[in-house]
């Protein structure tokens, strides 16, 4: 199954900041090359398991911060995916010799992983979303539980470092749930959310309340 090239192109350009502008010719050439090769340069793998097939419900999902998922877990599944180490190595090498190409390839790899995940969800749970630990005040460290329960090290080669980073870098893990919509209202860190302060949300939609966004100003000067 192929991800539509036009979708990848659009998403990659948005990722690079070109949402309202046209890129120059050199960037387009680099982008075209990255888009043409991304499937070959990466080794996409995914692994999942329905919560109901686990011997017991994962303990981390009982935490208050996961309250918004309650009632949706009967049909939910744990999911992890990766593009493998080769693409990390390629971006790393490029970043030393042709940094601008590395930046473009990095963007393409990110949107490709995202698109492959979306294709999977569309197939297995139409309308479902991937809720990743770290969203909405949940701890990124819960990735460890997701990856352990999926035995992702064995199936996908995803390692979680002590710092909480996943290796390969282009990896994701979380819980796929149906009928879920992200909202700041139910979020436990709403009062101290940096996104909201900047009039943004962690799920890419506009911030719901303007008054919180006024105080948000990127401070580029003396800290």
């Amino acid at each position, binding site marked *: 199954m192929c991800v539509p090239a036009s979708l990848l192109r659009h998403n990659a350009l948005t990722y690079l900041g070109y949402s309202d502008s046209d890129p120059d010719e050199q*960037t387009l050439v680099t982008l075209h090359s990255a888009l043409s090769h991304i499937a070959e340069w990466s080794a996409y793998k995914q692994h999942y398991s329905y919560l109901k097939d686990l011997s017991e419900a994962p303990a981390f999902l009982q935490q208050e911060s996961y309250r918004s998922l309650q009632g949706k877990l009967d049909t939910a599944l744990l999911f992890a995916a990766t593009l493998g180490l080769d693409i990390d190595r390629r971006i790393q090498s490029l970043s030393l*010799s042709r940094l601008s190409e590395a930046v473009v390839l990095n963007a393409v790899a990110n949107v490709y992983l995202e698109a492959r995940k979306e294709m999977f969800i569309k197939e297995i749970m139409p309308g479902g979303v991937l809720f990743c630990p770290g969203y909405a005040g949940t701890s990124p460290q819960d990735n460890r539980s997701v990856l352990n329960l999926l035995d992702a090290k064995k199936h996908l080669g995803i390692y979680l*470092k002590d*710092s909480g980073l996943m290796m390969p870098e282009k990896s994701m893990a979380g819980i796929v749930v149906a009928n879920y919509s992200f909202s700041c209202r139910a979020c436990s860190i709403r009062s101290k959310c940096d996104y909201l302060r900047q009039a943004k949300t962690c799920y890419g939609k506009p911030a719901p309340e303007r008054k919180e966004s006024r105080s948000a100003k990127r401070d*580029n000067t003396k800290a």
Partner: protein
Amino acid sequence: MPESISKKVQVFDGAMGTVLTADPEVNSFLPEELNLLFPEKILAIHRAYVEAGAQFITTNTFSANPIKLNSSRFSLHQVLDAAIMLARQAAGESSCKIMLNMGPTGKLLEPLGELSFEETYENYKTVVEYTKDKVDGYVLETFSDLYEIRAAILAVKENSALPLMATMTFDTSGRTLTGSSPEIVALTLSALGVDVPGINCSTSPEYLIPLVKRMRAFTHLPLLVQPNKGFPILCRGSVSYAMSDEDFVYYTGKLIDAGASIVGGCCGTTPATIALMAKYKSLPLKEYAPVADNYICSSTRLLKLQQGLVCGERLNPTGKKTLQQALLYSDFGYLQQEALSQQEAGAHFLDLNVGVPNADEVDLLCRATKKVQEICDLPLQLDSSNPEAIGAALRVYNGVPVINSINGSGPVLKALLPLLAKYGASAVALTLDEQGIPETVEGRLRIAKRIIARAAARGINKNRLIFDALVMAVSSNQSYGLLTLETLRSLKKMGVLTTIGLSNVSFGLPDRPLLNRSFLLMALTSGLDIPILNPLDKENMQSLRAFNALSGADPACENYISYRSISPVQEQSDSLYQVVLSGLKESLPQAMNTILKEKEPQQIINEDLIPALDEVGLRFEKKLVFLPQLIRSAEVARQAFQHLGEMYVQKTDKSQGLVVLATVKGDIHDIGKNIVKVVLESHGYRVLDLGKNVDTEKVLEAYRTHRPLAIGLSALMTTTVPSMSRTVEALKALNAECPVIVGGAVLTGSLAREMGADYYAADALTAIRILEEL
């Protein structure tokens, strides 16, 4: 290892975990603790395998090592003692061999992860030292990282004389999780002296048949193959395997036909599986043809040593001040860039030499080897006159390298041949000895023959040696060139590979490139196989490609045609200002040539480079250009600065000052930091790049040594912000006089303030503005 292993099929045991997880009484415990908590269950499983006909049983010690067992209620010694005793009890007086099972640590090794090579080695050494007089051998299994299994193999080989089996797992793409192919695994494990390499776990047995064939082509050793019983199915908390025992045993027969010598089972197999498999026991094995031993590799790239290759010579600080400085300050970015540019120019492997005065060459060669392997997958030629440095670098090299060099001198052969034998490396062999360089062809051949004989006595085939015919300056004696050519012809008659360090020939004469190029062609026609040269010299590379096409070394002229089919880049005649503004890297040389005829370097910086960068910055802020264009302009400007620096600016010391950059401990994302580096350099700042995953102490050391203009720290993840905070605190505790600038995707001005940083830079241009204000 018993000789019968290479004559007849042997049968190993099957899974331990599969049987244990099916038992609800024990499946919540650590499997290794069961040796003490439920010894009767472990004993029963071992006995069932012995009764099923297994000729080897593995102890229940997969995770019994200091790293993985650190949270157990039992000590490592308790677990090992109990596990070995149970296996011995089960074997009784049978001829069944007890193999101590060792699995991976579960952690990633540097540079991908946090575990060092030496820590990994020590982890396995602890186990081996305690068990070597208690078992019949070792089996390392289910490893997915070539580097980790390498550390474990060295721990076993250096601390015991027992037989060693070592198996890795492959995914459906036919590679290990870190990207090694079956050929590379077979080559590397055999080179390190493993008695039985092989495959275990992985996928379903039918997928392993081609992988076994591929391994078989790269080792003459017996192969151990222990597949899973098909793919696992998870349902309602339990795992099952769809393949029947009969099908599994059928495929086992196919695996034996493909080259497996010892067969067993991994996940999903039980004593019943092994009982059916026992029918293969004592089946005579085919004689395996000797395999080619003139291959080298990195962890992901295999290379046959043969005519037509190029060894890149540029990772050598001799006569290169910038590289010398970079190595002295442990700034390996420059070395990495040199490696990548040689790879892009067509080098097949790279010579690596770090001989810098006043540096600890042993330590430096090790670190440089790791750093180059981190970003470049070409195999390396480890180059040093210090055997200790060669030994240390061979130890940490991931794959099978070449060393440069051995020669006919007794002490040199005594020091280096054991290293070649131990690590299975190839070597450049110089045709000189204690008496110096013979001035006759016969003298050089005598030395070559002596080296071949001494190497053969150590089991090292002459295919693993590349003989250097030695080039001396024709300016001192005009016959030297012809002497080298005649030596090459004579060496080829001996059936060995040849090399020369090309550029010596022209020393002391004008227009050296012309002489080098001419001599290269003369040497190639005289039998030179693998020149060591500068691959960035386009004319040399063109000559070489043409020679390979004409001589048949490039089958079907494939490389020559593919090279020629790349249309030459059209050089444009834009001004330097326009070239930087548009990021036109290819047009830079011409623009520089033109402008240098009109202006002085400082004028160029002030009137063209800086204004162009300012304009790019302005357009970036107005969202008229975006990150890729900004970086391209910065990269071109940086090259222009470097060019000017090499020519003139060093003398006038117009650098804007030194900035230390680091991605903090725990974080390995460094694209953002690299962008800042390029932009700073494009504005004339010198950058000491400490890299990624940098310890606080290393940042403090850089401050103490260099007293920089500023220190920039980067972190991408919320989880690594505390690490950044610790580094900032440590710098403040040191009363560091330079400002600390922090940046990264998750940072904000308020976070920066909270951690005590002096400035927050949202992007590279903000960092420039901050530095300009200092």
